[in-house]
């Protein structure tokens, strides 16, 4: 074993440990903010695993999309809501916990079974390294064109939906109940959000 493979092995072990411990933390920690930050750490470690597989473009895209966009948005949502609320204790919490742990353990056992019975072709295909960007581009615009376009249509739909939900000022009546909406609660550009009602 030379220096390069030893380093690679150590990196692999530590990255895998971060992924496993981090994901457990995401699920088990009570503080939701810690969970969100840990999720970012897990995404970074996954990017590191991609890097070990010589897929530098995928690693950078992972960082950009999952850490830079998804995780930041999750944090944003948590911090903007940030409600201190006393939650009612759920009945039979212990039984629920045991049941969900059992389901998860079953899924894990299934995964292990699949992993151990599948004949993996080792060593896998040769990594193409830096050429990967060109190849990914070629695939996206030839044989994977339809999924690529469908994904963009899906994103467009999500975006339009978000805009419709966020543009509250056009709604005169509530969509669900049909009651008229209190227009003074709606934020308008140029007008202060909290209207001073004491003077009227």
């Amino acid at each position, binding site marked *: 074993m030379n220096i390069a493979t030893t380093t690679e092995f150590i990196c692999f072990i530590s990255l895998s440990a971060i992924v496993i411990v981090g994901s457990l933390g995401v699920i088990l920690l009570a503080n939701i903010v810690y969970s969100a930050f840990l999720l970012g750490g897990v995404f970074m470690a996954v990017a590191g695993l991609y890097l070990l597989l010589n897929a530098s473009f995928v690693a950078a895209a992972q960082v950009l999309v999952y850490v*830079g966009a998804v995780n930041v948005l999750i944090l944003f949502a948590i911090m903007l809501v940030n409600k201190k609320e006393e939650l009612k204790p759920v009945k039979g919490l212990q039984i629920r916990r045991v049941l969900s742990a059992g389901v998860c353990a079953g899924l894990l056992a299934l995964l292990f079974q699949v992993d151990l019975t599948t004949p993996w072709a080792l060593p896998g295909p040769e990594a193409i390294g830096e050429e990967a960007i060109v190849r990914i581009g070629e695939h996206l615009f030839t044989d994977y064109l339809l999924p690529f376009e469908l994904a963009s249509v899906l994103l467009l739909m999500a975006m339009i939906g978000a805009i419709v939900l966020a543009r509250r000022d056009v709604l005169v009546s509530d969509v669900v109940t049909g009651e008229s909406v209190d227009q003074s609660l709606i934020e308008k550009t140029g007008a202060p959000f909290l209207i001073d009602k004491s003077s009227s």
Partner: protein
Amino acid sequence: MVTSSVTTSQVLITQGIDIELSFNQAMEGIGISPDFSHLLWLPLPMLLVLIAAVIGVLVTVWLERKISAAAQQRIGPEYAGALGILQPMADGLKLLVKEDVIPKRADGLLFTLGPVLVLVPVILSWLIIPFGQNLLISNVGIGIFLWIALSSIQPIGLLMSGYASNNKYSLLGGLRAAAQSISYEIPLALAVLAIVMMSNSLSTIDIVEQQNSAGLLSWNVWRQPIGFLIFWICALAECERLPFDLPEAEEELVAGYQTEYAGMKFALFYLGSYINLVLSSLLVSILYLGGWGFPIPVEWLANWLGQSIDAPLIQIINGSIGIVMTILKTYLLVFLAILLRWTTPRVRIDQLLDLGWKFLLPIALANLLITASLKLVFPFAFGG
């Protein structure tokens, strides 16, 4: 159309100075195995770049103090060294020995981790900054994309320190910083994409090479004037420099996400923001102003003087000109950024977001479209 990385690196080795190769040969000369000499080589350029980044920050801080003084008709630092040139060192030393205060109700772990997460991606981005043909740490294929990806980590650090401070101003500052980074990242990436389209490569080396065929005239700034402006505005916004320094607007938020910080942790934020400024200026000079290229190609000058470009002396002069040109262009941009900081008023948060989403984003998209069509129509001038 696209040369594979192997052939490019072979070309690079045959022409120009390659210090790594010479180092490895010297190490083999004294009987050290190639593996081990590579291991010895690895930390050297990293250390060099780290030192370069820190010195760059010290110079920038001094410039900031002096130029702000000139803009306000003061003298500025004067007694610490000639022209106050040691003032940034004194500032740094003061921050280094200051007590490290963690507020009692703050979240100690996240409070400490925040500044680190802000600084580390910025320093990592120096990986792809070339000061000459072979003068960079690593010519990674994803090049400029690595910088875009790394700079998207920063908002997490800002949110983390804003949240952990347990202070409403800090939280608001962190949220503002993250919102600002996210909205200006998109036009920034689109401006970079137009450049990448023209040079058919993400590698910073290839981007500079492609601009240096005819000296000053072939710089990207002439082919991408709109992209240049978009990139510069977005870079200023990403660095939180004054027209866009809302996250730390003194009059509104005390000091934003850094309100509760003191000592070395504050110094990490300070260092991070200045390293980011120098880095952004370096990237503007690499992407738009020809990087290490002299306004007149050195090959022409060598031909005119009747010298071969491969002569050792010419090679050394060429390399030195490269470093000097990169630093000169960078500091011209840093000067511009400092002048902008001390002469422009701050925008409001709604103006900031309007500028990013309603103005820069459509313009950047249009710029990309125009670049693509120009590339199809004039492949000789826009990189076919």
